[in-house]
């Protein structure tokens, strides 16, 4: 049978999708446990989400949460840092730590037959790390050296400078790694104290997913984490999410000079929304239209029409408190000012003169919903998704409701949220690039004076 090439095949109805059952438990010590069965490949993933991320760093001690998290695989009980590494390797474990704005997430994946060993090891690492002075000194020095190297990495320089501009004097206004001065100010005592107050069962949620029945998954969790104790000691800082950012007095245009740079690394955006906003679904659709995917206004403009860049993306950095909406791209130096102007024009356009078309709505909604099941293919994907529920206090029905909620968004709602949450007049444009080659054209943008920031951002 010959193929009909006069038209594209029309996909059939979407296959039905159901998120596997999430079973909730609470251990005697207050630890919240979620189990999800994930049959198929004999693998198991543990995710522990602990309240307290970089936003919990005390002023002047930026980097504390991250360094504390880093100390978890530096020894426990009789095991040295080397022994811990060896024990992880022997069960083929993948171990990962992610320090976010509001929480820290530890992920360990191993073969199902090593579930008990993996859970025990993770528990020992998190609940009773050795916290030896020599390990602390070494880990801190490696972080200082890393910071030094990051000075040459344009995206890292841009992230650091942009956060400072977005959040002046706010606990979210720094990278998890901290700064040279703040790392030098840290002591092992501060780390030990942070660990004692933060790594408590009542502040944590453990998600266990894998190719075992709920009862077994719970049994493994209970066995390894049931003896974790520690009375609740409140952190003596308010949750970062509760700090209201200052009405922003930051400049609208700033550059971190990088003489002779081959490209300009750009960040353009402003503070916008909390993850808990009731407008979450319309904001996702809006972002997909503007720059959240390949076929989106800003990428098509800057890459496919003008060839200024290898790619441009927009997105929300979701946090419990107000987080930014921003554009991220790296453009040819000669195209710096025009890329900023085009970006701001696209943002304005979606608010006013060029609202979302029916075709854009359909494309954005379809791309967010029709492929949704592929986000839950592995035990690790499922576990990390369920941990997000704990992080943002979302209901267990969240994944089941996602597709209908996104599909219910209207073009009018997209216009409304674009007007409410995006505002080009508040946008900050940050450039990491060649100052001499760009400053003249940047001045012509009408964004005010170009502020020159120090090389470290």
């Amino acid at each position, binding site marked *: *049978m010959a*193929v009909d*090439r*006069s038209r*594209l*095949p029309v*996909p*059939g109805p*979407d*296959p039905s*999708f159901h998120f596997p059952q999430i079973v909730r438990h609470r251990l005697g010590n207050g630890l919240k446990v979620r189990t999800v069965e994930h*049959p*198929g*490949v*004999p693998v198991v993933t543990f995710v522990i989400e602990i309240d307290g991320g970089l936003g919990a760093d005390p002023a002047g001690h930026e980097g504390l949460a991250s360094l504390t998290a880093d100390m978890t695989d530096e020894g426990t009980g009789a095991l040295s840092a*080397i022994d811990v*590494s*060896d024990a992880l*390797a*022997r*069960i*083929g*474990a*993948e171990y990962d730590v992610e320090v976010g704005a509001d929480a820290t997430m530890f992920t360990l*994946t191993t*073969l199902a037959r090593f579930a008990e060993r993996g859970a025990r090891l993770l528990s020992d690492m998190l609940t009773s790390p050795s916290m030896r002075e020599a390990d602390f000194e070494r880990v801190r020095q*490696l972080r200082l*050296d*890393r910071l*030094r*190297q990051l*000075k*040459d*990495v*344009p995206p890292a320089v841009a992230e650091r400078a942009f956060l400072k501009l977005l959040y002046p004097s706010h606990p979210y206004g720094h990278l998890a790694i901290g700064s040279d001065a703040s790392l030098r100010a840290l002591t092992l005592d501060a780390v030990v104290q942070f660990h004692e107050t933060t790594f408590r069962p009542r502040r944590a949620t453990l998600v266990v997913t894998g190719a075992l029945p709920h009862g077994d998954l719970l049994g493994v969790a209970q066995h390894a984490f049931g003896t974790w104790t520690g009375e609740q000691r409140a952190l003596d800082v308010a949750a970062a999410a509760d700090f209201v950012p200052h009405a922003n007095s930051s400049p609208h245009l700033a550059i971190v000079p990088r003489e002779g*740079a*081959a*490209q300009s*690394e750009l960040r353009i955006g402003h503070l916008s929304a909390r993850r808990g906003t009731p407008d979450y679904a319309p904001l996702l659709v809006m972002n997909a239209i503007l720059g959240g995917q*390949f076929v989106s206004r800003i990428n098509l403009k800057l*890459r*496919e*029409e003008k*060839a*200024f*860049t*290898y790619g441009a993306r927009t997105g929300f950095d979701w946090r419990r408190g107000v987080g930014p909406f921003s554009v991220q791209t*790296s453009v*040819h130096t000669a195209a710096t000012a025009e890329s900023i102007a085009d970006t701001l024009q696209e943002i304005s356009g979606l608010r006013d003169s060029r609202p979302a078309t029916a075709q854009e709505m*359909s*494309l954005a909604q*379809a*791309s967010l*919903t*029709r*492929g949704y*099941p*592929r986000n839950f*293919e592995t*035990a690790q994907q499922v576990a990390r998704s369920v941990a997000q529920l704990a992080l943002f206090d979302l209901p267990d029905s969240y994944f089941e409701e996602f597709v209908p909620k996104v599909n219910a968004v209207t073009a009018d709602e997209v216009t409304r949220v674009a007007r409410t949450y995006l505002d080009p007049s508040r946008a900050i444009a940050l450039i990491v690039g060649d100052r001499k080659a760009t400053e003249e054209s940047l001045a012509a943008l009408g964004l005010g004076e170009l502020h020159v920031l120090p090389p470290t951002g």
Partner: protein
Amino acid sequence: MSIAIELPHAKRTLANGLDVLVHEDRRVPIVAVNLWYHVGSKNERAGRTGFAHLFEHLMFEGSEHHNGGFFMPLQQAGALLNGSTNADRTNYWEVVPTSALELALWMESDRMGYLLPALTRERFETQRDVVLNERRQNYENRPYGMALMALSSALFPPEHPYHWLTIGAADDIRAMEFEDVRAFFRTYYHPANASLSLAGDIDTGRAFELAENYFGEIPAGGRPEPVHAAASLPREVRLVFEDRVELPRVYMAWHSPAMFADGDAEADLLADLLANGKTSRLYRTLVYDKRIAVDVSAYQHSREIGSFFLLASTAAPGQSLTEIVAIIDERIQHLADEGPVEQEMERGIAQAEAHFMYRLQTVGGFGGKSDQLNAYNVFRGDPDFFAGDLDRYRCATPTTVRNAARSYLGFDRRVLLSIVPRGQAALALPGSEPVSVS
């Protein structure tokens, strides 16, 4: 304990030479479409580098019966999609909801059979500029970003196709001619030089039927001549490159056995036991005990006609590359003399077994099951090698690993590249010649 780890599949070859591989995995209602063309930058010639990769970009700009962007209809169907080019192959993939499989097959077959009528000079020129920006972003504007270029050009002679990187030389990219696109497509982009893999929520019989239906009509084309080239390095070469970096780094590179050849798996294991994790010999000595380096890494870059083994370490502030190299050499010598201990072998094989298991978790995308089947099929001519691949690691012994260290990691036939902060060439290893890459 030995566990069975398998990747069951079926294979059929269409009359036009297209290999079709199918793997069923019904857990999630998605299907992975994965298409390999056996062409990469090793099919290029000196002075015309970067073409295979630029061509990959053009494959997303439209074909005769869908004369517009490749992304739009697939994104509309909820697909995730991408493509990539390396020295040996070019791959394209979509992960689609089961209900959109035919759309993906239509799109892939249309650009395999009918690309050229939709290609315009304007699209070509735009993508040429996009690629120049990709090069700036990923190489020129990145610390140590030019290291692989300098190493490849020192390891392989100028006429050897691994002499250049897949991204190509900037001058070559600028000089590309629209007219060259046509010949390239005709030589490499046809069923006899391709392999199609479908994995996921699909019945095997139905998958073969659909493949025949969409791809069967495309003329076979000839099989391109395999590329042959040899390289050896009879001495130690020392180079220095000044870069926008804070800390000096040394790279060591050796020729090593080709992908899947005897010794290739041992080279992987060597890389692990030298530099993967705190327990590894070099991390432990350089970073943990002596603290003279901030990192160390090792990797066997397995390639079709010859691999290279790469080791790299960045000096801690104020520390010398010379001292780091002396320690690395001493550790390598020890390994070549004594071989690994039993505990290291057990650990390496436990990790290999776990990683093979993890590789069975996703059907699509880079490294998913569909991609792995194509890799075995294209590079070995037989997709049935998943278990055999793991066996290569299970069969390694302290003796074979020791022999690999002796055979491949000689001090008198390697490239040593120092990358140092600008204006501080004195921090390089003694006797290093300045190298020019741009």
